[in-house]
């Protein structure tokens, strides 16, 4: 398991807050209403534990996920995840739709994909910028199922590590908690840590 120093941890939180801040600005422009987002904390946990964290409780909760694959400076599956009822709430708040149906319709799933796409591009884009490296990404994919199902749908190995961001999403007095998971294998994990340290070194004027 990877342990981050306090400095590395703070650097990551700062980077991701810049990313979700940009995503929030893009979303505000779309809906013409204030959307706020922040990342209060990040943690590295084994994939199996990440699934448990999301699926708390006895009956496995249904989760909506939007995933994109990124590669370049490091390789990762990035997945935005909300409990299913919360993603219904987000899409309908964004769309301003008054007739709620039980599940996300096809069109709403596509809207959720766009929301995920904006979030993930902004988060990873900020990382790439700060690492001064280029990454390439895939188009977003929509998933629904248990957290375990979603975390494995991208084909990651059981011993992968997940960099988990807690996301607070605030729209029209509704506060919604979600997660962005970056599934990383061991080599990607080391690439990421190396990039963080390069960034810190540059920020401290040592590089």
């Amino acid at each position, binding site marked *: 398991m990877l342990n981050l120093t306090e400095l590395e941890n703070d650097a990551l939180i700062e980077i991701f807050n810049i990313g979700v801040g940009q995503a929030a600005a893009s979303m505000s422009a779309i809906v013409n209403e204030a959307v706020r987002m922040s990342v209060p904390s990040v943690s590295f946990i084994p994939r199996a534990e990440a699934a448990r964290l999301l699926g708390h409780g006895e009956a496995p909760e249904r989760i909506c996920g939007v995933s994109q694959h990124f590669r370049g400076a490091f390789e990762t599956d990035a997945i935005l995840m909300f409990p299913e009822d919360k993603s219904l709430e987000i899409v309908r708040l964004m*769309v*301003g739709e008054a007739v709620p149906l039980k599940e996300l319709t096809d*069109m709403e799933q596509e*809207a959720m994909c766009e929301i995920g*796409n904006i979030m993930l*591009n902004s988060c990873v884009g900020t990382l790439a910028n700060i690492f001064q490296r280029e990454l390439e*990404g895939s188009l977003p994919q929509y998933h629904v199922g248990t957290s375990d199902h979603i975390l494995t749908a991208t084909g990651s190995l059981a011993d992968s590590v997940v960099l988990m961001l807690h996301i607070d999403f605030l729209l*029209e007095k509704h506060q919604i908690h979600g997660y962005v998971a970056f599934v990383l294998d061991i080599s990607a994990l080391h690439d990421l840590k190396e990039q963080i340290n390069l960034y810190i070194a540059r920020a401290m004027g040592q590089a």
Partner: protein
Amino acid sequence: MDTPRLPLLESVFCAVNVGAVVLDNERRVVLWNSWMARHSRLAAAQVLGQDFFTVCPGLRGGRVAMAIQHALYYNFPSLLSQTLNKAPFALYLSEAAAARDDRIQQAVEVTPISLDGLPRHCLIQVNDVSIAVARERLLREQAMVLRSQTFADGLTGIANRRHFDVAMEKEHRRAKRTGTTLSLLMIDIDHFKAYNDHYGHQKGDQCLIQVAAALSGMLKRPGDLMARYGGEEFAVILPDTDVEQASAMAEAIRARAQELALPHERTTDATRQVTVSIGIATQKAGAPVEIEALIGSADRALYQAKRNGRNCVAALQPN
């Protein structure tokens, strides 16, 4: 004999049944396929080599521009859903559709294209999702019909309080987003308790049914909604309605109630007929207030109408 690949690829690009546009790293149009030409009524020859935002000026600074930026400079693809973006490109199925600005419903993908030895390009794909949009609208309308059965007031058949709360929230958000006015009327039957005491509850119910039917019949626009707010109180939501229009509407509603000429022995009004008092609150364009404040103002305006002798209307500005 081998088919030459390049001309073949270009023909295929032109023939595919989605809109496809390729831009170079300076956002000049490099490829513009037949689907785009057909639906934009701009031939490839007219747009090739041109700046993309000269060809599509309406897209400058918007979500499509951001997606192009992400593809060209960050190497990330973007998806633009129909739901959140409606129809960004001015694309039409026919001349007639163009004349009434009835655009093809679109889902758009913007993908970076890497080329050896050349700066990055990007591919814009536009899918026609009009059929899916229509299907979903139908689904939603049917859900609304089902819902309306649980959203109707059991006695009068007009919208109930729950329906009012949902509609109010929706119209309030819409007014806020679009920067339009929103008016709310609170209507109360004058001395209704005395009516009930004098004529009995069955007559009282009849009175409510008649008044509700007559007054809700006054509303003509699809967004207008009259609901039974509680007891003998009704609320009317009037989107996109300023204080003058709302006052005119309230006065027409007050007159309509009087026209029913339902006898009411125990009222203070000289006509000895059922009358209503109406309070009006209007949220100004671009100056939204909380829903509670709007309802509170309409309530206070109603109270003022009661104090002014009933069978009249009064308006208050929420703050």
